[in-house]
């Protein structure tokens, strides 16, 4: 390692680490990042840019990194693309690879894009590849698809697991630099619960890069150590490193992502990779600091060009000299600190090029002492070199900005500084409004919309003393606001800190060559000016047309430079142009940590009935119905679905089929006004329904379309047992409650959801009465005493039952309702006693076929929210004498009484063995050439074992007028002719029903 200092820094020099980069072994130390280790080995050229494939280096030392993006391989299924080398901690055996280049980093064919670069300026996506039109599919699209994107997407399922955690605290401090630490110290003095989080691998923020400054007489790192110790020993404080505050939401609810294993060589298997902290904080203090701004000049993207403050971080935190002969170019005092530290560490810093005429004499004096020449009032026209910066072209600036003759200065690194941008992301997400500060050419927080405040660099206070004392003050106030009297009277005195300031420069005068603003998106200053000249004047449009700020770094180093250039081009002050919206996540965040444990089987609840375990035991194939799982069919050995369903259907129509109907919604409607209430809710009339009778109820929306349906049984004058579809249960309940609570609160009705209180066993088939008669008490089951569509109360197998005589199959049918915990036992007894009748369990598939044979509609299958009762042949369900019910008024809306509405019909395919595909379109002509008018679609389609041919239900324009007509179903392979028939295919007189 040629560029490592012999001592200093916070790395552990006693723990060397080996890792590979593009297959080659490289050495570093524990505490290094991938970037600092590469730089220690003199490696600067680490990537290729997105559009132009230009060689790129390491721009920064933090999460704002634009260019040093790598693929990190953590093992099978654990490949992370676009990882910033500046945030990836080094561990033994780490495998890193450069990306976006082929066949290698050095010899990348993508560089040919450079030749096309005059055509690839702003908005080229919208202007090119348009002609000839056919070339798009055959030629352009496949090539663009292959070369598009940044990095290699993973292909395997993420094998890691991620956790979620919920935490409440009195004070949340975002950022554990000096300002944040001072806040946390003061806030936690009493017993206020404090959480302090920082994205870095260790606590300390900015002072990790500035060991020489003194706080209350102590050297910075000594103060840091004792501060961290104090905080760690307090029970009411939680310190989180490796933790990024990723989003600020409503009412002080924030998401923090804690990274647990990406820095470990062999993490334990039971630890989650990342943890999402859902924090609800009484008060938030933002101490996120500031990010350095690059300068805009020609070829400012060459490897070796780096932010000055980052170079200082590499030296002081990691013991790495980024160049032996660095040149510094700046418009801000802070770059001098980097120059002085590097010179003191042995680097040959020949020159500081300062864009300002007026520079503090202290700085010039110190520079002179270190042998550094300061060129005041000078500019940089461009950086030279390709895979590494080799020299800079420098010129003097005349009084009116004229550029003098150019001279070249050799260098192996170029450290730049355009000032500092307060990090406003969290503040902005909290919905606060910013204000422009001309003196720092940046926005700062102004009006807070939540219980939050900002301290330090993110508040535009760049001095350490301000940050510490403001932090202490904010911490005190936060604890007080939370009701904890903080006794703290801490204050801070800082020494050996130079008060830095500077100016912002838009684009360096005399710049030639490509001057980059957004490095990751390859957007140049001239791109932004071009967007403005093409008429894009809103900053939102400029952003999207040029794509500046839209890469994974979200414009952290480019937004304000882009704003300055756009403002200039528009001839408006920056504050009148504004910034685009800040959105979470703050830095790229894994999908896994958002999902947490909600994946696979835990993605959604699976609701099961008490009888489900029997079905599972018997090898039933299940299907999801809303959140429930229901048995779809019960295959015997060697049976596929077709065979199983055919057998189940036949058994039900010839003897007995048994099915679990427990998932259906059930509501008990009770009260003196119960019948009146139901009259208003359903289309049917309920007043005259006798006690002990049932009726099929149809429910519409106010728009007149079918909303839900179900059988309703009257148990008493003032008590109804209402059923709904499985999926519609919650919304029917919600709708009923809505009307009762807010439209008709005067009605004396009470609603109780009893969906889970009753297990429901459906028995259908000619032998059903024979099966259950011996076991039913207190109910006369004979045909006359217990007609179809009636309800009786009694006992079955000694267990209380509400016995419904209803049928969804067209055979003699009963639905046995027992209190749900008896469901499985009653089912098992019926199975046992039913053996002598060859009883067969059937699932939802058979259920669908049998009801289709009878032309019974399923809400959500034949209906899609746009069918009226008449459309599906259910005008009979409407109570004609009722003054009003939900949907009645809409039924006379012009569109709902128009001619040619789609109506329910049955279809027979000419080829009886062919089963139509549900959803297939129906047309009137025997043709498949498009465009052709669609007059309807197939809603249900099955093989009918009963009829020994296929059947289908469909909705077709003016369907009922077309009885007997031939229509056509065009499919990809051919057109299938069909005949329109009555949708009641089996037993239209209903004689089996009445058995």
């Amino acid at each position, binding site marked *: 390692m040629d560029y490592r200092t012999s001592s200093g820094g916070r790395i552990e020099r006693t723990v060397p680490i080996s890792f590979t980069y593009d297959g080659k072994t490289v050495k570093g130390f524990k505490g290094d990042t991938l970037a600092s280790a590469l730089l220690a080995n003199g490696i600067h050229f680490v990537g290729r840019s997105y559009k132009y494939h230009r060689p790129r280096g390491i721009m920064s030392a933090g999460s704002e990194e634009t260019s040093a993006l790598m693929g990190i391989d953590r093992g099978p299924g654990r490949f992370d693309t676009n990882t910033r080398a500046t945030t990836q901690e080094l561990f033994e055996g780490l495998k890193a690879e450069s990306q976006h280049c082929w066949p290698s980093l050095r010899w990348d064919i993508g560089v040919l894009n450079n030749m096309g670069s005059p055509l690839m300026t702003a908005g080229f996506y919208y202007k090119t590849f348009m002609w000839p039109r056919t070339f798009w599919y055959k030629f352009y699209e496949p090539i663009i698809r292959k070369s598009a994107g940044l990095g290699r997407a993973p292909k395997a399922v993420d094998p890691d697991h991620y956790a979620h955690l919920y935490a409440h605290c009195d004070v949340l401090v975002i950022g554990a630099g000096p300002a944040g630490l001072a806040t946390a110290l003061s806030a936690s003095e009493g017993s206020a619960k404090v959480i302090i989080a920082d994205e870095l691998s260790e606590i300390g923020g900015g002072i990790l890069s500035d060991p020489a400054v003194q706080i209350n007489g102590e050297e910075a790192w000594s103060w840091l150590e004792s501060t961290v110790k104090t905080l760690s020993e307090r029970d009411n404080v939680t310190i989180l490193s490796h933790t990024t505050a990723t989003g600020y939401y409503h009412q002080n609810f924030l998401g923090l992502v804690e990274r647990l294993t990406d820095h470990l060589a062999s993490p334990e298997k039971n630890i989650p990779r990342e943890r999402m902290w859902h924090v609800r904080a009484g008060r938030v203090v933002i101490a996120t600091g500031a990010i350095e701004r690059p300068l805009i000049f020609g070829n400012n993207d060459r490897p070796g060009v780096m932010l000055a403050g980052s170079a200082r971080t590499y030296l002081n935190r990691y013991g790495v000299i980024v160049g032996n002969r660095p040149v510094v170019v700046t418009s801000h005092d802070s770059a001098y600190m980097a120059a002085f530290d590097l010179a003191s560490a042995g680097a040959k810093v020949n020159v500081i090029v300062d864009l300002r005429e007026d520079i503090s004499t202290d700085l010039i004096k110190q520079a002179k002492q270190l042998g550094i020449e300061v060129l005041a009032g000078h500019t940089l026209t461009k950086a030279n070199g390709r895979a590494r910066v080799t020299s800079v072209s420098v010129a003097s600036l005349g009084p009116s900005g004229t550029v003098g003759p150019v001279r070249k200065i050799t260098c192996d690194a170029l450290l730049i500084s355009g000032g500092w941008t307060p990090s406003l992301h969290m503040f902005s997400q909290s919905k606060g409004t910013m204000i422009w500060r001309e003196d720092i050419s940046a926005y700062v927080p102004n009006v807070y919309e939540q219980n939050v405040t900002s301290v330090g660099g993110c508040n535009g206070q760049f001095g350490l003393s301000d940050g510490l004392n403001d932090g202490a003050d904010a911490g005190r106030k936060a604890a007080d606001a939370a009701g904890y009297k903080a006794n703290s009277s801490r204050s801070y005195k800082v020494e050996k800190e130079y008060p830095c300031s500077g100016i912002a420069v838009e684009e360096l005068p005399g710049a030639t060559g490509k001057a980059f603003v957004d490095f990751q998106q390859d957007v140049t200053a001239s791109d932004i000016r071009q967007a403005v000249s093409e008429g894009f004047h809103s900053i939102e449009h400029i952003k999207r047309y040029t794509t500046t700020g839209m890469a994974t770094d979200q414009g952290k180093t480019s937004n304000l430079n882009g704003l300055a250039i756009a403002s200039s081009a528009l001839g408006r002050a920056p504050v009148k142009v504004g910034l685009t919206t800040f959105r979470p996540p703050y830095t790229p965040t894994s999908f896994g940590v958002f999902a947490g444990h909600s994946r696979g089987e835990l993605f959604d609840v699976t609701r099961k009935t008490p009888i489900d375990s029997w079905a599972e035991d018997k090898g039933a194939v299940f299907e999801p119905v809303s959140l429930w799982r229901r048995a779809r069919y019960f295959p015997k050995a060697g049976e596929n679905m077709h065979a199983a369903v055919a057998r189940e259907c036949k058994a039900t129509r010839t003897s007995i089929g048994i099915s679990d109907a427990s998932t259906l919604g059930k509501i008990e409607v009770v009260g003196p006004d119960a019948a009146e209430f139901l009259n208003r809710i359903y289309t049917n009339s309920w007043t005259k329904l006798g006690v002990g009778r049932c009726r099929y109820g149809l429910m519409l929306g106010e728009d007149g379309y079918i909303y839900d349906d179900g059988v309703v049984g009257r148990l008493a004058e003032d008590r109804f047992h209402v059923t709904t579809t499985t999926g519609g249960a919650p919304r029917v309940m919600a709708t009923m409650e809505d009307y009762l*609570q807010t439209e008709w609160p005067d009605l004396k009705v009470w609603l109780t959801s009893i969906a889970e209180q009753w297990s429901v066993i459906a028995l259908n088939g000619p032998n059903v009465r024979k099966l259950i008669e011996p076991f039913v008490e207190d109910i006369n089951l004979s045909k006359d005493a217990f007609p179809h569509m009636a309800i009786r109360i009694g006992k079955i197998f000694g267990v209380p039952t509400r016995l419904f005589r209803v049928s969804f199959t067209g055979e003699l049918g009963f639905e046995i309702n027992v209190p749900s915990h008896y469901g499985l036992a009653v089912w098992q007894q019926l199975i046992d006693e039913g053996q002598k009748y060859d009883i067969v369990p059937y699932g939802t598939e058979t259920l669908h076929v049998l009801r289709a044979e009878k032309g019974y509609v399923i809400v959500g299958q034949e209906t899609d929210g746009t069918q009226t009762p008449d459309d599906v042949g259910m005008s009979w369900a409407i109570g004609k004498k009722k003054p009003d019910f939900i949907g009645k008024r809409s039924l006379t809306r012009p569109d709902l009484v128009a001619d040619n509405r789609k109506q329910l019909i049955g279809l027979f395919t000419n080829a009886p063995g062919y089963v139509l595909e549900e959803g297939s379109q129906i047309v009137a002509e025997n043709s498949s050439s498009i465009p052709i008018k669609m007059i309807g679609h197939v809603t249900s389609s099955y093989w009918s074992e009963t009829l020994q041919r296929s059947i289908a239900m469909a909705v077709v324009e003016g369907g009922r007028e077309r009885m007997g007509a031939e229509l056509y179903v065009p499919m990809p392979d051919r057109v299938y002719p069909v005949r329109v028939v009555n949708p009641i295919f089996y037993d239209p007189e209903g004689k089996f029903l009445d058995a």
Partner: protein
Amino acid sequence: MLLIHCPYCEQERAEIEFSYAGEAHIERPKDPSALSDAEWESFLFLRKNPRGTHFERWYHIHGCARYFNAVRDTVSDKFLMTYVANKPRPSDLEIEEAKNGL
């Protein structure tokens, strides 16, 4: 995660306990059959879409299962106040007082 104050439970609860129930203070006509198509269309479909104060309903579906009303600013997404169902629309003064008190 928004916190919504249920006026029945008299507690602030997480938004996942609630479901939105449309614009408030729309009274269902007593005699729908007497309305013209245009008047009925207005009741069925036409809703305010203000930039600012919006009167709306919420249903505490995973709590007390009661419907209540709320005044919410559609720009800041802040709830200015919540109040029980069937109460009249609060006055500007009442909303101002609630905003400052909250």
